[in-house]
């Protein structure tokens, strides 16, 4: 029973919970057991800490930085009591979730994957955290991430790498690698990540998950420790499109505490979810057709387009003439904002303090010791880009590119309802293979940053498996990116659901170096085409 629970989708668990077939406590315990046996935590006490990076075994995922076990069990018991008392509960009440450690949760540390915030207990809940609690979604703990969400592999965490459950020697992508791996490893059916330039979509692609960046402004940023404020957006990870839609429905909410929260009602992503592809125009972006992509990725993408056609969608060719400037523009705007956002980490009020004779020296020593190399690199790039004499050429120019890209999308959406592209140019790459080359790492984001700059909704869903070029015989997930106009997340979900139904991708990691799934892993898919 317990073992089987962790393979179920959130929607299935919610149905079983509502029907009284299983208790929230049983569901939570099953997932805590899965974490205890696969993640590399010290499963002891109220809050389980992750082992030190050096002590992690080669088969331990290290998705979690801390597991709030006692609090999760307490919440589950409370849900069971209230359900027994006849209280009407939310649709995902009792379903467990992993929270990226960039969102504050009262009573538990928030580290953002940085030594700078080690030991900081936020005095308040993020709006997302509040909404999850109000919906009785049970938070299991906080997940690993690239330091302050800067990175594409989760190798920039100060607390060690997170491994990809599909191949434990490979990265899960980033920056929300912990949240992705937790769901892929069946440690939680759902998780929350944040996406600034692809930090949900790219790890979703690399770990075979559905990952969604909702329209900018539909999910509150209050309590999301900022990397780049104009781009950051929290969103769901799940093993199915419907699960992701359920979770998005809970967290999308107007928030008067976030000035950039859109006042109009967010789209209902559940209502038309299963309406099918009929009449939808799928736009293929000429500039993101596969140049520079791994052959396997290009092949899976081509198959995806054929699938759309077969399913009755109209395929149209669209152009985003300025998409090529997206990456450089992104790598000026995001660091610029980060250089200012991260100024508050100075040793004065919270987190790390390295003592020194003067306030200025204390600030400098604290920041020198507290930040990792990638964060320092981006702070320096951003500081430079905002400096007088350079501002016009860098920040201002990048802002103009941003406007042009938004206009490109507007024009493209006149002839297409949903745009598609591969999510990432590659399948999951080996741990340590790109860390020495920041530019190679940044190129992971080439297909995801345009939607970030335009603020439009975008998701990644599994489109199939492909061989890693460096290791013949492997079969690793490939993601398909979908993008929709502002506040039309519903159309994107609808197309994704139809695609998913036809593909029947099995999200359970498989392969020679895959995380041992245990005896409960389904051996065959039960309908349609089998992806692997």
């Amino acid at each position, binding site marked *: 029973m317990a073992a089987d629970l962790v393979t179920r989708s959130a929607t299935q668990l919610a149905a079983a919970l509502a029907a009284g077939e299983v208790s929230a406590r049983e569901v939570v315990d099953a997932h805590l057991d899965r974490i205890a046996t696969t993640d590399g935590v010290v499963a002891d006490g109220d809050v389980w800490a992750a082992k030190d990076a050096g002590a992690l075994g080669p088969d331990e995922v290290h998705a979690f930085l801390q597991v709030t076990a006692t609090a999760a069990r307490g919440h589950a018991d409370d849900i069971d009591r209230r359900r027994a008392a006849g209280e009407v509960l939310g649709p995902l009440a009792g379903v467990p979730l992993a929270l990226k450690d960039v969102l504050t949760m009262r009573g538990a540390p928030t580290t953002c994957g940085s030594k700078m915030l080690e030991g900081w207990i936020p005095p308040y809940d*993020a709006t997302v955290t509040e909404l999850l609690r109000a919906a009785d979604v049970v938070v299991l703990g906080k997940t690993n991430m690239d330091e302050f969400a800067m990175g594409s592999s989760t190798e920039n965490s100060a607390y060690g790498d997170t491994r990809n459950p599909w191949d434990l020697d490979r990265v899960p992508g980033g920056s929300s690698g912990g949240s992705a791996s937790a769901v892929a490893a069946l440690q939680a059916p759902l998780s929350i990540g944040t996406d600034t330039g692809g930090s949900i979509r790219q790890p979703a692609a690399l770990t075979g998950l559905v990952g969604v960046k909702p329209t900018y402004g539909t999910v509150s940023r209050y309590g999301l420790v900022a990397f780049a404020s104009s781009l950051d957006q929290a969103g769901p990870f799940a093993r199915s499109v419907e699960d992701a839609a359920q979770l998005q429905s809970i967290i999308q909410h107007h928030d*008067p*505490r976030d*000035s950039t929260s859109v006042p109009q009602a967010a789209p209902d992503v559940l209502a038309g979810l299963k309406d099918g592809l009929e009449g939808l125009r799928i736009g293929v972006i000429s500039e993101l057709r596969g140049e520079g992509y791994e052959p396997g990725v290009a092949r899976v993408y081509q198959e995806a387009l054929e699938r759309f056609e077969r399913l009755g969608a109209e395929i149209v060719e669209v152009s985003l003439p300025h998409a090529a400037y997206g990456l450089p523009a992104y790598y000026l705007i995001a660091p610029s904002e980060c250089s200012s956002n991260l100024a508050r980490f100075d040793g004065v*009020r*919270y987190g790390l303090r390295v003592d020194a004779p*003067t306030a200025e020296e204390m600030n400098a020593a604290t920041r020198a010791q507290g930040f990792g190399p990638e964060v320092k690199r981006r702070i320096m790039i951003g500081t430079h880009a*905002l400096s007088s004499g350079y501002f016009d050429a860098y920040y201002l120019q990048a802002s103009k590119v941003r406007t042009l890209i938004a206009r490109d999308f507007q024009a493209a959406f006149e002839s297409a309802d949903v745009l598609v592209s591969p999510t990432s140019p590659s399948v999951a790459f080996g741990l340590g293979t790109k860390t020495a080359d920041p530019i190679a790492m940044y190129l992971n984001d080439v297909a995801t940053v345009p939607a970030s700059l335009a603020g439009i909704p975008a998701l990644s869903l599994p489109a199939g498996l492909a061989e890693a070029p460096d290791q013949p015989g492997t079969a690793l997930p490939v993601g398909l990116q979908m993008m929709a106009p502002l506040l039309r997340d519903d159309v994107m979900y609808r197309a994704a659901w139809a695609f998913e139904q036809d593909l029947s991708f099995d999200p359970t990691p498989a392969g020679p170096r895959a995380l041992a799934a245990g005896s409960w892993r389904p051996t065959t898919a039960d309908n349609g085409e089998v992806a692997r």
Partner: protein
Amino acid sequence: MTVVEFRDGWELVVGLEVHVELATNTKMWCGCSTVFGGDPNTNVCPVCTGQPGALPVVNDQAVRDAALLGMALNGEVEEHCWFHRKNYFYPDMAKNYQISQYDVPLIHDGYLDVEVELEDGTLDTRRVGIERLHMEEDTGKSLHVGDTGRLHGADRSLIDYNRCGIPLLEVVSHPDIRDAETAQGYLRELQAIVRATGVSDARMDQGSIRCDANVSVRRIGDDLGTRTEIKNLNSVRSLGRAIVYEADRQIAVLEDGGTIRMETRHWDESKGVTETLRVKESVTDYRYFPDPDLVGVVSPPEWVEEIRALMPELPAAIRARLSEAGVPMAQAITLVSGELMPWFDEAVAAGADAQAVANWLTGDVAGQLSTEGLTLEDSGLTGTHLAELIALVDDGTLSTKLAKEVLAGVIEERGAKGPAAVAEDRGLQQVSDEGELRAIVEQVVATNAATVEDIRAGNNKAIGALVGQVMKATKGQADPRKTNELLREVIG
């Protein structure tokens, strides 16, 4: 602009930057109280202490207040403006950037007319241009323990974030000021306007209005000289003294063949000098950029008119109205700057003569209050009381001397009793009942036959002695005019 010679051959050029702390209930970006004087770090929250993940939301009242003051200063409201981040590290600034306005402030292009009294006693109006009013946030306060009392060299520093995030409005003048009197007049008038609009209590002693002066000198006809910025000006008086000191210092340096450094200088009130605070070797690069946590502030014309409709009568208009009512300018200035207008208007509305009310308010009322150490508000005296007092003098019930005693009585009672009641209680009315007074007069005439004869013989001055007798008999409560009349009548 006419040239005003400051010293022989030298012209003084001053621009003022005035920070006004808005008297909103809550801070600029969060719901924390703005009350002055709470225990350290009690009016704080995740937003104003810059906790990771916390976000600012604009206080609508602060924008309304800023627009109102901007319009009072004849400025134009920008329909679309926004906030920038001014990046620099300082421990009492929780985020290490200040949210401020940069390229597009809420208000631009205003002016203030300052009236300066010339040596011959006439008034001269000087117009000082206002470049902009921009919204920003205040910082916390640092307390440096040990050594110099400044950040450098302190043993340790304590920070109180209660003030952090209180809305500030910076009013930036053009360098249009040519003498210390105009600078002082500008600051005084600005304070009066701030108070009239109610956007701040404008108390320099509590820092709710703060003024920095940019001072330079030049030989008449030359280009602008290098300026220094003077800080720590805690009163209108300090502003005047500091400007004169600094200008003389700069002239001395230049006349010695030296050059002026671009720097920030600290006014030392006790020594009466300015001292170097920090040298601006290069322009500090604040790396301004639009704050991505905030959206623009939109002020459509209807909204602007809605705010404009709330505009109270401003000090200049009040002074003009007083002057028309015959109140001398000196009294008018006192009435406005002393915030006595509500009492004045109430008394006049109750039928009192404007001139008389002005005399009382700026004379005896002010005098008695200052002796008692009371504010007008606390004294309980109302405009209606004042009107009643004036009426009692006018109808002869009270002499001026008695009226002052009655006023003291009303203040003593904290306004619980009005002038008539106080006069009655304390037996302070003049004896003006003709029958009663006639009887006393007849008796005085009967007992002073020699003096009466003297008067009848044509010595009119002798009547004074009889008046004195009547006064003595009535303990000073006889109406002198009536007494005189009756004496003449009885003597025949």
